[in-house]
Each structure stands twice: as C-alpha cells, then as structure tokens.
C-alpha cells in the first residue's frame, strides 16, 4: 500500500510577474474550462462580462519612460477571506483544503461578498446564461452552469483537483507535485504560473512562495491570500 495523504492539501499558486507577458491565454483557458457565461457587446458595456481571471494593467510613467504592469488577478483564495463572514447563508466558505468555495446552490444573491472582496474577483449572474446552439456542446460537464441570481468566482479549478484526487485514490497513491493544474496554469505559455500544495514544503509553489521575490496582493489587509506574486526583476 502506498502512502496515503495524511495532511490535508493547502492549494496555492505562484505567479511570476517576470515571466508573465500579458498574453491572456489564461483568460481564454478559464472560459473554456469553467463554462463562463458569454458576454455580448451590450452586456459587456454594462459591466456584466465574466472573467474569473483577468490581466490588470497599469501604466506607469509617461512616454518614453513608460512601463506597464501586467498582473493576472484571480480569486486569491484568502485564508482570512473577507467574502466569507458576510454571507448570510454560508454560500461562501472555506473547505478542508483551504479553498474559498462558492456553493452555488446555497447562494441567495445578496452580493455582499462581491462588495467585500478587495480584489474584485467575484461575478454575479444577472441573467440566466445562454449559449446559442450548438455552442452548448462545448460546456464542461464537470462544471456547474450557474443559474441566474448566483455569485460565482474562480475555484482554482476544483473539478480538476477532484479528478486528480480521485485518480490518485484509485491508484492508492498521493498526488504528485504538479499533477493538478488549474486551466490557467496549464495554459500559460511563459510558464509564469505554478500551482501546488503549500503544505508540502518540497512543492514548487512552496519553494517559490518562500523566495525573496514573493509578495501577496494587498497583504496589509490581513486577508492571507494563497496566491503569491513574484516581483519583476531588473
């Protein structure tokens, strides 16, 4: 019998801003994986477009000494998530693996969590999502299609975690580092994103999180995010 996981996983991510090119492959990957509702020009203009992961861009300086800061922003899966205590029905809560989970079925749509998220990564289903046929054929059966009135956000591709864990269980082994990859991490051409178990000190993400370049986004708020950003170098 192989060794079984004794300690729960604590999933985390490291994003190397020195590698990130801002190419948005992760954004497309997320749409493809997670059945994000399609926007239309109208809905996008009204601020109803969905991007669980987005590339924030901030220009700094003026021509010709100008820089742009690209930063992929997704749910930071905070350990002390501000979205959690405000939900009156426990629709957003922490699961055993430290993921900040949104239970779509339980959500009544107060949208308080979205207000209280300092990273603005939560999206609300203002309407029932529709896909013109036959685009529905693409929908990922592993991922719930969220109905109207429900909040949603990045899940760290929990369906992929689940699949990998089940597979490992079937084979009576523990998960290997890098075996689970959310869609964004998987797609990143510059390999700027690394996903893994923060409870495993040998995992790549743990080592990157320890590196001197690692910072967390708005750490001063005390949210204890599990996404680590590695600063750009010179």
């Amino acid at each position: 019998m192989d060794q079984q996981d004794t300690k729960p996983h604590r999933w985390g991510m490291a994003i190397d801003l020195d590698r990130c090119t801002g190419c948005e492959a992760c954004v497309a990957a997320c749409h493809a994986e997670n059945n994000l509702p399609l926007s239309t020009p109208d809905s996008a203009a009204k601020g109803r477009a969905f991007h669980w992961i987005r590339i924030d861009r901030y220009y700094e300086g003026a021509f010709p000494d100008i820089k742009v800061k690209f930063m992929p922003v997704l749910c930071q899966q905070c350990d002390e998530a501000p979205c959690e205590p405000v939900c009156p029905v426990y629709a957003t809560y922490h699961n055993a693996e430290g993921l900040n989970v949104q239970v779509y079925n339980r959500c009544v749509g107060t949208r308080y969590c979205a207000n209280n998220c300092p990273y603005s990564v939560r999206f609300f289903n203002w309407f029932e999502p529709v896909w013109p046929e036959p685009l529905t054929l693409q929908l990922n059966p592993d991922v719930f299609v969220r109905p109207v009135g429900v909040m949603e956000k990045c899940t760290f591709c929990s369906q992929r975690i689940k699949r990998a864990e089940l597979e490992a269980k079937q084979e009576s082994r523990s998960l290997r580092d890098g075996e689970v990859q959310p869609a964004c991490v998987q797609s990143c051409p510059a390999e700027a994103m690394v996903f893994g178990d923060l409870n495993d000190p040998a995992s790549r993400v743990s080592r990157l999180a320890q590196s001197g370049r690692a910072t967390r986004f708005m750490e001063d708020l005390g949210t204890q995010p599990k996404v680590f950003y590695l600063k750009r170098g010179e």
Partner: protein
Amino acid sequence: MATVAEIPDPRVRTELWRPLSRAGSRYWIAVTLCAVIVAAGLAAWGYQIAKGLGIAGYRRPVFWAFYEADFVFWIGISHAGTLISAILRLTHAGWRKPVTRAAEAITVFALMIGAILPLIHLGRVWLFYWLIPYPNTRLLWPNFRSPLLWDLTAIFTYLIASSLYLYLPLIPDLAQLATRSRGWQRNLYRLLALKWVGSDRQWHALERAMKLMAAIVLAIAVSVHTVVAWDFAMAIVPMWHSTIFGPYFVVGAIFSGIAALVIVMASLRRFLHLESYLRPLHFDNLGKLLLLMSLLWIYFTVAEHLTIWYGKQPAEYSVFESRIYGDFAPYFWSMVILNFVVPFMLLSIRRLRSIRTVTICAVTVLIGMWIERFLIVVNALSRPRLASAWGAYSPTWVEITITAASFVTMTLLYLLFARLFPVIAVWEYEDVAHG
C-alpha cells in the same frame, strides 16, 4: 394638588373623527392613482424576478445600488415616529401629543417598505427563507456573523416593537370608535379594541407599558439604524469601513425622520383641516429639532470626510476625490445644500421660521438624505480598492419604478390609515387640551 382633567369636549372628537366617516371623490382618485403606481412597482419587481436582476442597472462593481439606498432611506424614515415620539414621551414634552401617532404610523409603514426592499434586492428572492434558522435536512443554516442577519433580527424586532408601540395607545380610541361605527368597521374596531373598557387599571397599565415601551423602542431604534450602518461599516470597502457610521446613520435617520414627519403633518393639516390641532407651535418645535439635526448631520459629515481627506489613504481618498471633486461631486454638493445650507438659512432665523419654510426644509432634507444614502452605497462601490475594477452605475426604469413605488406606497398606506384610524390620539389630545 390633584390635577384632574375636565370632562372631554365632544367637539374635539367630532373634528378628529370626521375623516373616518367621510371620503370624497378626491380621496378615492388619490387612492386609485397610488394603487396603480404601487402595482406598477410590483409588476416591475415581478418582471425582475422573471428575467433576473440584470434588467436593473446593477453591474460589477456596483453590486448594491438603488434598492439598498432605498432600504437605508426608508429605515431612516422609520425613525421618525418611534424615536421622536419616544424621546418626547420620555422627556414629557407636552406638545408631542398631536404629533406622536402621525409619527408612529410613519415608522410602521416605512419599516414595512424598508423590510421589503432587501427582498427586492436579492438575486434569488424565492429562497429568502434560507436566511431564517429553521431545522432542515439540506444543511442550510444562516451565518450569524453576517451583518445581513443582524439586520434581519434588528428589523424584525423593530417592526414588532414599533407596531405595538403604535397599536397600544390606539386601543382606547378603537374602543370608542367601536361604539360609534357600523358594519365591518365596527367589527374591525371591536376586534382590535381587545375589550378595552376604560377602567383606571387599564389606563394605568397602558401608561406604564408605554413608558417602558418608549425606553425599549428607543434602544431598538438606535440599534436598528446602527446595525443598518454596520451593513456597510463592517465591510472593508473604502469609505464604508468607518467607526462613526453607526451614530452618523442614526443622526441621519432621525434627521430624515423628522423631515418626513413634518411633511406628513403639513399634509394632514391641509387635507384633514386639522389647523387647530397641528398648530404653528408644533411646526416651530419640529423646525428647531430639524435645525438641530441638520447641525449634527453636518458635524458628522465633516468629521467623516475630514479624516479621509487628511489621512489620504489611497483607496479611501479615491472615493473621497470622486465625491468631492469628481463624478459624484454634483450629488455631494447638492446634498450639502439641501441638507444643511437651506435648512440652516431658513430655520436658524426665527423670523423666517414658519409652517411653510419648515415644510420646504423638510422636503429638501428628504431629497438630500436620499442622495446621501445613494452616495454612500453607490459612490463607494464604484471605486473599489483596485482601480482596474472601477465602474459607473446608472439605473434603469426598473429601479426607478420600484423606488417611485416605494414612495407612493407610503402615501397609499397613509391615505388608508388616515381613513381608518384617528391620526391624532383623541384621548391623549383631550387630555392635553383640557388638562
């Protein structure tokens, strides 16, 4: 020693009860008009439930907007009655007597409206009962850490307490009315009179109960609006996360409550011909109160904004800047004019203080306070911490209809109330008029 009142003057009763027996065609036209608008509001809500909240102007990042502003506004208005009448009752302010019931009725109606608005705002209103702790097999349980649940309990308590607070002193009047009316009204009054016989035991119990209720309701009212303020202040949204939001909201609530009361009184005086009961004295006193609250309000407003300006924390300052100099500046400055400049100029000069000016100020204050609620909700949300998520909100016909309907609901409820119940406590009034 013994101060015993004179035997009542039947004229008072006749005058105060006149509206209950007579309703002209103008009344019914008004009721119909109001009912139509309220129905339109309900239809808009129904349409929103069918289609989704998206037909309103809501968007990321402004996840709360009109409905929440309306909610805070109406909960604020609800402080008209209970709080004002309780304060006056506890301080034995004799002039309160013709004012209290009018005020308490505002409370109950405003609370009813206010309590519905959170439902309108829900994404899945058909599941609202999931906020209530009840045994179930679906692992549903409300989160008592959420300020929304505090809200739920606070409003529940307040609605019950203020309804009873309105109802208890109404009982003697109902008992009298029961003897003097016919048909369904007689049955209604008799049912509601709870077999009141007018014994001194009952009068004594009523007096004791009302004194206690005044104290309790005062505590509840303060806590309710504090909890409403905490809906915002508990969140780490820049310009929401403020320690003075509790008292600031309470002050604003009393402020708008008095304004609403003045408007209601002015209307009652005009339409029910109660000139000899709602006298300039009452308006003058309420005008002074309004002025006091206006000063308190500007004090809190300055205190709130000055610290932000001086501290210049980027996230908060972004909101501040858009409010003072930016997109929201027109709203902010008109709010200051409506809530402070106009009332201060008209009310602080004694010569200018009249029923007309007090009423004008009340109207400006109501508008100003609605803008304040709108600013607090929308302005802060449209400037979240991350500039990349900033966005502008504009309402659609849905929110506008529902908001309009909320105001008309108040009118409608008042129209019906004034038709069914004496808006001035006859027994109390007699007491003071001849005591």
